[in-house]
């Protein structure tokens, strides 16, 4: 294991949606600064949108909606727990991002008059803008990175954040092909490594049959935690209504504007709105437990040309292998509903609201460390939010680094990290990562899948803590297997945080995401606040505490405005 040392001004960890945008914006703002994108896969096809995207879900377009309306809707949808100023950024800058993407060659759907053809999927307001030709989105982004002459290192996975006196000064990384170790010093670091998509175990039992791109194992959640950053509201899980077994979106966001809807076994509606929320997921859970399941996405009542149009979008974008999944089972949207199921849990602020705590400039609680995209806690942020947060972080960071020098790397820390990375390689006959990961994630299902029970969560928490010892038994035979082993460390950290946070918030909130059987009601008197997880730097223990919400920019009366999508 060689050690490769690099020094840059601004390091972007993760070359997905947020990361590509951040790198371009950093370079545009400060052309003389050195910007490096570190990517575990290859930025041409990496991250959540590796195969493109069929639309944007949070488009605030003048004439259709305002940033204030958007912030109000997300405030209500997220049961009041948010930093409105961060969500407001998505509303304020999203239109700019859309226009810039258009200049780069991304096509958005327009009506006959040439206006953006927005669709209503949310409870109130039109925020969904289709991109029927969005399949090459990632290629377009990576081309911009190249055009701006930004350095990219593919196939290197960050493993830890380096700090000095409480400031972030770099990262360590693992070349997942050569096994070399990277030590990268940077004046500012942006973590944008996506969701923790490999937390729960899919019902299929296939470790990588996840909703999220399975490369996203909670890397950033874990690295930020280990460096001492605050994470917030980790009990607010990501749970999605997905195509059963396939575990991809069905996808009502695309199909519902055409007249499709989520139905129960009798073909009737049971939710009034197909926008994903914990409240919606609770309705799905109730329906499934009422004997009216399974639920399905219903399109078979639509005419041929409409179904063909839906198919042309769904079979070309985001998860195009849907087509062969359905074909293999002899399913046809003209005749069959798309059977849906409740997914295993994950952590993702792009869809729900748990992640590394950030302010409106995407600063974490550690100076020099930023977070963006799915891992940064800006509720319901989706793809536009990832672009915006990447941009905001980069532009702020380029100011921050002006008066900053590189830190000094602690050689003891590097040696310890090197030993940690070498351990599985030195134990080639140890337990394979597949088995270690399977069991850990099965425990996540057994003890954390909502509805949540206190004793279950306690057992889970103990098991996840004990599992540190199991990680010592991991064996790897090559750098690729070592990558998977180190990802299990990330997953274990996320599991422990998920159990700890779920036990702490003694109320129910966000519908199914945090539905506790022992505290079934929302309790605003005690819990209209953030829960913060942070590693104690004195004894390395996981601590959890309440923190006040930031004052709202816009008053919302949450007693009056309840997010209710049930069909009476």
């Amino acid at each position, binding site marked *: 294991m060689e050690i490769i040392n690099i020094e840059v001004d601004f390091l972007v960890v993760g070359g997905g949606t947020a990361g590509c945008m951040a790198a371009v914006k950093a370079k545009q703002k400060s052309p003389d600064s050195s910007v490096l994108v570190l990517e575990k*896969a290859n930025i041409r096809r990496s991250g959540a949108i590796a195969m493109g995207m069929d639309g944007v879900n949070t488009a605030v377009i003048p004439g259709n909606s305002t940033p204030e309306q958007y912030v109000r809707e997300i405030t209500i949808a997220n049961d009041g727990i948010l930093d409105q100023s961060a969500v407001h950024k998505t509303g304020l800058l999203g239109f700019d991002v859309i226009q810039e993407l258009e200049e780069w060659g991304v096509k958005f759907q327009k009506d006959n008059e040439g206006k953006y053809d927005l669709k209503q999927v949310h409870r109130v307001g039109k925020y969904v803008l289709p991109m029927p030709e969005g399949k090459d989105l990632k290629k377009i982004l990576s081309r911009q990175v190249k055009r701006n002459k930004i350095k990219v290192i593919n196939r290197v996975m960050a493993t830890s954040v380096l700090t000095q006196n409480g400031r972030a000064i770099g990262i360590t990384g693992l070349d997942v092909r050569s096994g070399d170790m990277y030590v990268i010093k940077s004046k500012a670091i942006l973590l944008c490594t996506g969701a923790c998509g490999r937390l729960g175990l899919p019902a299929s039992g296939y*470790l*990588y*049959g996840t909703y999220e*791109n*399975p490369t996203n194992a909670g890397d950033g959640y874990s690295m930020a935690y280990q460096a001492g950053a605050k994470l917030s509201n980790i009990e607010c899980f990501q749970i999605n209504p997905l195509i059963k077994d396939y575990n991809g979106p069905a996808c009502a966001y695309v199909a519902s504007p055409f007249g499709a809807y989520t139905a129960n076994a009798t073909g009737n509606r049971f939710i009034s709105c197909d926008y994903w929320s914990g409240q919606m997921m609770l309705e799905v859970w109730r329906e499934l437990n009422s004997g009216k399941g399974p639920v399905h996405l219903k399109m078979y009542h639509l005419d041929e040309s409409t179904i063909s149009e839906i198919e042309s979008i769904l079979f070309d974008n985001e998860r195009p292998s849907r087509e062969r999944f359905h074909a*293999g089972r002899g399913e046809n949207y003209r005749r069959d509903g798309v059977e849906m199921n409740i997914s295993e849990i994950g952590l993702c602020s792009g869809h729900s609201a748990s992640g590394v705590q950030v302010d409106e400039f995407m600063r974490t609680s550690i100076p020099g460390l930023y977070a963006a995209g799915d891992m940064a806690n800006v509720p319901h942020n989706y793809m536009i939010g990832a672009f915006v947060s990447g941009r905001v972080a980069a532009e702020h960071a380029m100011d921050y680094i002006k008066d900053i020098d590189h830190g000094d790397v602690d050689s003891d820390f590097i040696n310890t990290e090197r030993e940690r990375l070498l351990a599985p390689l030195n134990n080639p006959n140890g337990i394979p990562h597949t088995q270690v990961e399977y069991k850990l994630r099965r425990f996540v299902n057994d003890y954390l899948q909502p509805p949540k029970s206190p004793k279950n969560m306690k057992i889970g928490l103990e098991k996840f803590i004990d599992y540190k010892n199991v990680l010592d038994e991991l064996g790897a035979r090559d750098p690729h297997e070592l990558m998977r082993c180190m990802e299990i460390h990330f997953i274990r950290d996320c599991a422990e945080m998920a159990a700890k946070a779920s036990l702490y918030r003694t109320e129910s909130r966000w519908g199914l995401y945090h539905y506790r059987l022992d505290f079934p009601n929302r309790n605003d008197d005690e819990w209209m606040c953030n829960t913060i997880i942070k590693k104690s730097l004195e004894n390395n223990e996981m601590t959890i505490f309440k923190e006040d919400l930031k004052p709202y920019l816009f008053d919302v009366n949450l007693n009056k405005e309840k997010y209710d999508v049930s069909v009476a």
Partner: protein
Amino acid sequence: MALTNNRVDVPVIVDESKCLDKCKACIEVCPLDVLVKNPDTGKAYMKYDECWFCLPCEKECPTGAITVQIPFLLR
């Protein structure tokens, strides 16, 4: 510790008659990095059963040598 090799049905199928020896397109775009070249034959194959059935390997193969199946457990 004793280890054994389990047989698995892998999702990514490579038609070796079409796979070009010097081409690495599929290997470079796979997010999970599961494809490698067989050093003896120069042909790509799926070394690690860790597939998201996302299709970049199939789409970017210049000769159409690759077919991605839905993994058996989901199929």
